């Protein structure tokens, strides 16, 4: 039986067994348009020696916050929650990202002592999530963080099922042990788009204008959402594509709910242009299924300022894609909260591996930037890209290879 048939049967059998959709890890399995549909090309400028090529980016610089976040590399760790991944994996992500001069966008639940420790000791950066469930999002948590990201993305409703709601998870989420952590579909104190500004201002006031405020969206009406966020005064907009990793979700979310990342960047850039946001220092961060330096470079060339790593970062800290994240019994000890399994992740070693991985990605980005003739990776533009397919050219507004011009619908 071919793989496709096997997977269909597995899903249908799970459905018929108990009348509930099959829960599975959240990476889309079916092929979707992505960064592989683009290639990198030089412009007529002279190629740079790769040693001179800059890779840094700042979030919140020359805006409202006293302490902008400075990233040495145009990458960060995408938000993954305690409960989806374990204590040691979280600490290793914090360590690896700190060593790389990067930041971690934190998931649901209070920051763990281990990740705070790894961050403090290595001068890392953690950005707390202002979540729709406000799990552990109290002032003590925010005070430690170097930024706050208002989560406006759509997630499946049940974040923590009761069977993994242990004492440790309950403590981090601020809920009684054994209780399900349900994620409300929206912030209960954010009723309309106008209220987003109220939240940006609330967090600026509560954090005494010290740290950048970010907002995160998933697919759907990207132009309108990004424009609203910019007008609400955020320092950075984070977009998450459908290929993002989740420990547990169902088929409809994993395969059908959301937009491929490369389709989200163009409307976001249109909103940035219409509001002159880049000139005002607002940054665009994108994440969801990034696999390597080439993906990062292409996202930058499409207009992003930094790119978040999810599954690649998990591999960095020990994941070997066993595909059982939803079971909570990850054989590598990453997607689990079982202390015996968590112990398989050595924070130091895994953190160093993640650092190596991010260093290799940075080299790849720099190589492509050098090939494209750029002095800084942020100088990459859509002119450094060609689309391999008509569809990719239509979606991205990148020149179609061979035709070598924009498709007519992109010519204004």
């Amino acid at each position: 039986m071919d793989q496709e048939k096997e997977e269909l049967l597995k899903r249908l059998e799970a459905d018929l067994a108990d009348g509930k959709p099959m829960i599975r890890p959240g990476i889309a399995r079916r092929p979707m348009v992505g960064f592989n549909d683009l290639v990198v090309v030089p412009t007529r400028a002279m190629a740079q020696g790769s040693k001179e090529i800059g890779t840094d980016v700042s979030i919140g610089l020359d805006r409202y916050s006293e302490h902008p976040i400075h990233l040495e590399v145009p990458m960060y760790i995408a938000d993954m929650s305690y409960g989806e991944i374990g204590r040691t994996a979280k600490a290793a992500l914090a360590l690896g990202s700190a060593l790389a001069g990067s930041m971690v966008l934190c998931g649901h639940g209070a920051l763990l002592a281990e990740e705070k420790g790894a961050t403090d000791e290595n001068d890392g950066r953690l950005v707390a999530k202002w979540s729709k469930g406000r799990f552990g999002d109290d002032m003590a948590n925010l005070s430690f963080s170097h930024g706050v990201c208002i989560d406006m993305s759509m997630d499946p409703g049940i974040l923590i099922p009761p069977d993994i709601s242990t004492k440790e998870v309950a403590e981090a989420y601020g809920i009684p042990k054994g209780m399900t952590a349900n994620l409300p579909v929206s912030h209960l104190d954010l009723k309309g788009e106008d209220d987003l500004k109220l939240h940006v201002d609330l967090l600026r006031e509560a954090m005494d204008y010290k740290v950048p405020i970010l907002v995160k969206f998933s697919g759907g009406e990207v132009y309108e959402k990004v424009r609203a966020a910019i007008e609400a005064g955020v320092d950075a907009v984070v977009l998450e594509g459908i290929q993002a990793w989740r420990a547990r979700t169902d088929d409809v979310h994993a395969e059908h709910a959301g937009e491929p990342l490369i389709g989200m960047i163009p409307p976001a850039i249109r909103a940035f242009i219409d509001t002159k946001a880049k000139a005002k220092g607002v940054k665009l961060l994108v994440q969801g299924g990034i696999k390597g330096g080439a993906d990062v470079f292409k996202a930058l060339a499409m207009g992003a300022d930094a790119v978040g790593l999810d599954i690649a970062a998990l591999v960095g800290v020990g994941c070997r894609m066993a595909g059982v994240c939803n079971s909570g019994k990850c054989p590598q000890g990453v997607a689990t909260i079982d202390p015996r399994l968590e112990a398989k992740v050595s924070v130091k070693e895994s953190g160093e591996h993640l650092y190596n991985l991010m260093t290799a990605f940075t080299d790849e980005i720099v190589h492509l930037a050098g090939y494209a003739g750029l002095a800084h990776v942020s100088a990459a533009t859509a002119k450094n890209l060609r689309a391999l397919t008509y569809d990719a050219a239509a979606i991205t507004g990148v020149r179609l290879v061979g035709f070598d011009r924009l498709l007519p619908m992109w010519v204004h």
Partner: protein
Amino acid sequence: MAEEKVAPTTKEINRALRSYAEANKKSVSIDRIKNNNHIAVGLDKPVKVTIERGPAGDFFGALNAGANIILNGNAGRFVGSTMSAGEVRVNGDVADGLGVYLSGGLVSVKGDCSGAVGSHMKGGVIIVDGDVKGDVGESMVGGEIYITGDVDGTIGTDLRGGRIFVAGKMPELHGNVKVKPLGPKDLGAIRDHHERFRFRKFQTPDALNDFRLIEKA
């Protein structure tokens, strides 16, 4: 030309409060605010903040983590949102979302609330000495809500933990919650709160027995 008196901005007020708190001052008072949003948010020291005249806008005392904040006047939406410790007291009416996402501390209102009281509350105490013209305790997982007046909305929709006490009229309950008998400890807690807040609705101590306890069925 006469010197114009400029009202301080929200940022200036909050910075002043923060500097008092950080200097370990015991108490500070502000003459009045005019509908400012986000007043006295994110304070994490045990300073007493009194605002002599309102009204306050939205998110009054939100993210409080230890201060004792008092407002004489009305307040807008989301008073004490995401607060984890300390106290916020409003002597006046408030709009929607009193104590949403509360995880600790005490939020009290001497007046009426429009609705969404204690939604997604995880801990702490909310006291309303007045009526609630909307829902109470939606998706609540922990903590306690006391309402001396009537509730004109739903109670405990999708409630999974925590306790709600209502003394006035209340609607028919959903299947997931039911009225349970008050224990001696509950009565003791109610008396203690009455002792402190002097509930307007109660002329005689016997009236305290009017409270009904609503919990997960």
